[in-house]
């Protein structure tokens, strides 16, 4: 497996010098995200997030399974993340690296453990049948900020997803196809957004949405997950540079603003997509009418 090249001495000292003067290589201000592009697939529950050159795809799918015996009233929600060679040739398929473990834990804590998805609403028959919601995260291109991008992708895909409707008559459970009955959206309790900060020059400089090159040179990083109401879900800081409380508070304030902005973009794109779908469905219906006539 080819090893990833480390940044050269020149790149390292130049980037740090520039940061000292509050300059970033791509010309952004220190606390500015790259342009966020979000698009949805034809299917429900497919979200494609681009953050600069980083591209992450999240796909949500559902199937009916038996619930865990210790949690008979709850559905199952899993998130899988795997860094494959598509993100970078240096990633080997099938072997988990430390980076990958950290990444999947972070996403897990940010979305699943923060109860973004109401798992109780996924129960069909207690102890017998429930929905298993699966979110597969695919990293298509890696230029830093994988945590932030995949979190956006997953929450967008969850909100976009529709599961087939279910009706229960006595013991009999009927799962209606998408054409039979209008599929139902998932019950989302809140929308967590991750904002990762990278620290340089002993904490003097902190960046949001670092590129791959910037990530390679950072002394430490910290991810704050919160929703637009300012409810903090997690602060994750796995080692690295020690930072003082004032910086942490400043980061949290920035994170709140960013989370609001990002959640608004996601919301806007969801509405735009819904509008397009309604228009298309109406068109299809009118077509079908004509054929019948």
């Amino acid at each position: 497996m080819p090893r990833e090249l480390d940044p050269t001495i020149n790149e390292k000292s130049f980037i740090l010098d520039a940061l000292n003067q509050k300059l970033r290589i791509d010309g952004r201000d220190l606390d500015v995200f790259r342009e966020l592009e979000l698009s949805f697939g034809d299917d429900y529950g497919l979200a494609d997030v681009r953050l600069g050159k980083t591209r992450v795809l999240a796909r949500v799918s559902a199937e009916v399974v038996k619930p865990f015996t210790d949690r008979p009233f709850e559905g199952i929600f899993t998130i899988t993340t795997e860094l494959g060679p598509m993100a970078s040739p240096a990633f080997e398929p099938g072997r988990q690296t430390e980076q990958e473990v950290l990444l999947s834990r972070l996403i897990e804590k940010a979305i699943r453990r923060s109860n973004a998805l109401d798992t109780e609403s996924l129960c069909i028959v207690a102890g017998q049948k429930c929905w298993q919601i699966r979110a597969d995260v695919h990293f298509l291109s890696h230029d830093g900020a994988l945590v932030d991008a995949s979190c956006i992708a997953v929450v967008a895909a969850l909100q976009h997803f529709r599961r087939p409707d279910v009706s229960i008559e006595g013991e009999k459970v009927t799962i209606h196809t998408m054409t039979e009955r209008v599929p139902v959206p998932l019950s989302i309790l809140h929308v967590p957004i991750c904002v990762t900060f990278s620290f340089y020059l002993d904490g003097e400089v902190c960046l949001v949405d670092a590129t791959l090159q910037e990530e390679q040179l950072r002394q430490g990083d910290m991810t704050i997950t919160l929703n637009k109401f300012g409810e903090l879900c997690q602060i994750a800081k796995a080692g690295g540079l020690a930072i003082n409380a004032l910086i942490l508070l400043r980061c949290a304030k920035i994170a709140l603003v960013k989370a609001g902005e990002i959640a608004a973009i996601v919301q806007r794109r969801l509405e735009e997509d819904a509008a397009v779908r309604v228009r298309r469905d109406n068109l299809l219906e009118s077509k079908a009418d004509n054929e019948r006539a």
Partner: protein
Amino acid sequence: MADGSAQYTDGPTTLLASINGPIEVKPRDEIPLEAFLEITIRPSAGVTSVREKHLEALLRSAVSPLIIRTINPRTLFQITLQIIQHEQVSAAHALHTLLASAIVVVVLALVDAGVPMKGMLAAAFVEGADGSAAHVFGYAITGGGGREGGGPKEGLVFVESDGVFDEKGFVEASEVGRKKCLEVGELMKGWVREKIGRDMKYRLK
């Protein structure tokens, strides 16, 4: 950032292929006189299963003869195919519709990456008249020409069939497949021309 990539949508199927190479190869996979070809297919939902492995094997038999591997010995060509969306409903021939699109997108990505190739392949999925058989045809869309008689020559180089069919059905399907392949081939050539046009745009005043 990959060395070459292509995204292809055919009806309900969307695939993304990326190519890296020639790059450093793991000592275990090193071949003294040839480049090693690594093909990975990743499903859109769930983990890699037998289905993807089967598709990998079929895809390998279609594209590996296209790649001239002796030019870069002891290196690695890494082909990764991500299924972004694919119609799950008609499960009967799902693998075959996927295979046809996979060949097209991988060939385009290989051309984009500038991997040395013996030719370009266009592929099409054809369903038998009663829906019981599925065929994938691959036609070489470039080649021939030169001294022998000018103009690119086409030729059937890849067939993968499944289901019940007789000789007549196969011949009929292959005729449909040929037409489809040539259509797809023209599209593919158009995309490559577009790409090269973009690369050479600097020449305009």
